[in-house]
C-alpha cells in the first residue's frame, strides 16, 4: 500500500519504494533530469533528498519519512525522460527508521482530496 505526502511523494509501506505521484509528473511536464540519493544516505522526514527537473522547472523531492536509502533506480537517473512514459516508477528504496511516521501520511483518498482542492 502506498502512503502519500502533500508535496506529492509516495512511499510503499510494504517494500520501501519511494516515488512521486502521477499528478506531480503531469504537472511537471517533460522530465529531463533526476538526481537521486546514494545508497546508504540517511535522512530525516521532510528533508530535500532528490531533485527532479522538467523543461519548465526544478523541484526538490522531500523524504516522506525518516530512514536510509537501500537502492536507487539508476536506469531512471540515466534516462529521466522514461518517468513520463512510466509515471508509476519508483525512484529509490528506503528502510524506514520510525514506522510511527507512516501514520502521519495521507492515504490515496486523502491525497486525491488534497490535489482536488
Amino acid at each position, binding site marked *: 500500500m502506498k502512503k502519500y505526502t502533500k508535496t506529492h511523494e509516495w512511499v510503499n509501506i510494504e517494500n520501501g519504494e519511494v516515488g512521486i505521484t502521477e499528478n506531480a509528473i503531469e504537472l511537471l*511536464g*517533460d522530465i*529531463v533530469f533526476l538526481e537521486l540519493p546514494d545508497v546508504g544516505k540517511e535522512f530525516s522526514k521532510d528533508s530535500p533528498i532528490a*531533485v527532479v527537473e522538467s*523543461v*519548465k522547472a*526544478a523541484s526538490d523531492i522531500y523524504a516522506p519519512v525518516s530512514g536510509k536509502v537501500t537502492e536507487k533506480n539508476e536506469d531512471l537517473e540515466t534516462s*529521466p525522460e522514461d518517468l513520463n512514459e512510466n509515471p508509476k516508477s519508483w525512484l529509490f528504496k528506503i528502510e524506514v527508521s520510525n514506522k510511527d511516521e507512516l501514520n502521519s501520511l495521507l492515504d490515496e483518498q486523502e491525497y486525491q482530496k488534497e490535489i482536488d482542492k
Partner: protein
Amino acid sequence: MNINKLKSSPIEELHIKNNARLVDFAGWSMPVQFSSGIINEHISTRTSSGLFDISHMGQIAITGMDSCKLLESITPTDIKSIQPGRVRYSFILNEKGGIIDDLMITNEGESYYLVVNASRTKNDLDEIFNAAKSFKDISINHLHSKGMIALQGPKAIEVIKSYFDDINKLNFMDYKKTTYKDVEVRISRVGYTGEDGFEISTSKDLLLELTQNFLNDKRVSFCGLGARDTLRLEAGLPLYGNELSESITPIQADLGFAVSSSRVNKKDFRGAKKIINEINNGPEFSRVGLLPEGKRPVRKDTLIYKNGEKIGKVTSGGYGPSIGSPISMGSIKSQFNKTNDHLEAQIGNNFIPLKITSFPFVPHRYHRKRKV
C-alpha cells in the same frame, strides 16, 4: 493570482478547446503548453510548423510627418533607412543607454508599425507619448483591437501560401499589408524561433477563423510559451527581463548589429556616449552562450565562477530539446569571454562545468534573399 483580472486573447476559446495549460504572463492568461508537451511542440516547430498565440504583444502604429524623427529620438536605429515593406529589430533606450524594450519596427509606407513586449507595452507607450511632446505632426495608435499569431517552422510557408497571394515573395524581415475576406491583415516574415516563419496580425474575428483553419492542417502544432522559450533559447535570442533590462546596453547584450553605424557616426542617440565607448573599448559585461556539462539544466540567476572568482550569472537556462542537453545564456565580465573556455556554475554545493560557446546553439534557418 486572480484569473478573472487577466487579459484574455481573442483566440482564448481555442486555448481551452485544445487543453491548454494557462498561466499569468505579463497580466495575460496565456498557454504555457498544450497536451503534447513542450518537447513535442518544440520539435514539431523545428521539423514542420508550430502556431503560437502572441496576441499579448503590444502593437502600435505611429503616423505623421514627424514619426521618423520621433522614433530616432528614442532608438539607436537609422529609421530613415528602413525601406517600405521592411522590418527592423531595434530598442527603445533610456538616457543611460539601457534597454527599455526591444522591438520590431516596420515601415508600412503611411506609418511605422511597432511590435513590443507584453510586459513592457505600458513603459513603451509612456516613453513614446513623452517623446512625442517635442514633435508636432504625430499620431500614436495602440492597436488594442488586433490579435496576433506566429506560424513558425520549415512548413509554415506551405501552410500559409494558399491563404494569401504572393506570400512566397516575402523574404526574411519583409512585411506586407494584405486582406483576407476583405479584412486587413499584416504579415511579416519574422519570428523568434530561429526558423522561417510569419507573424500575422488582424482583427479578433478573422484571427480566430484563420487560427482554426491553420490548426486543422496536419502540418501545424499548437504551441505555448514554454516551447517559445526553448526555441528562442536554442536560437540564441535574448528575452526582455532575462538578458535585457534598463541597466543593460545593446552592446552588453551582444546586439551591436542593431545599433546603426550612421547613428554611431552622428553620436545623436540616447546613451550614445556610453554605447560608443563600449563599441570602441568593449563592454564591462558580455552576453555569452554556455553549455553545461551533464544533464542538469543550469537556470536563471545561477552564479558563475572562474577559478573561484564570481564573474557573472546565468540569465536564461534550461533544456534544449533539439540539442538534447542543457543550454544556458549568461552575463559575465568581458575579460572572461573566450569561446571554449570553461567556467563553473554553483547549484547548492555542486559546481557544474560550463563551456563558453558562440550563438546560436541551433543554426538559424531564415528565408533570406539569395545574394546574386
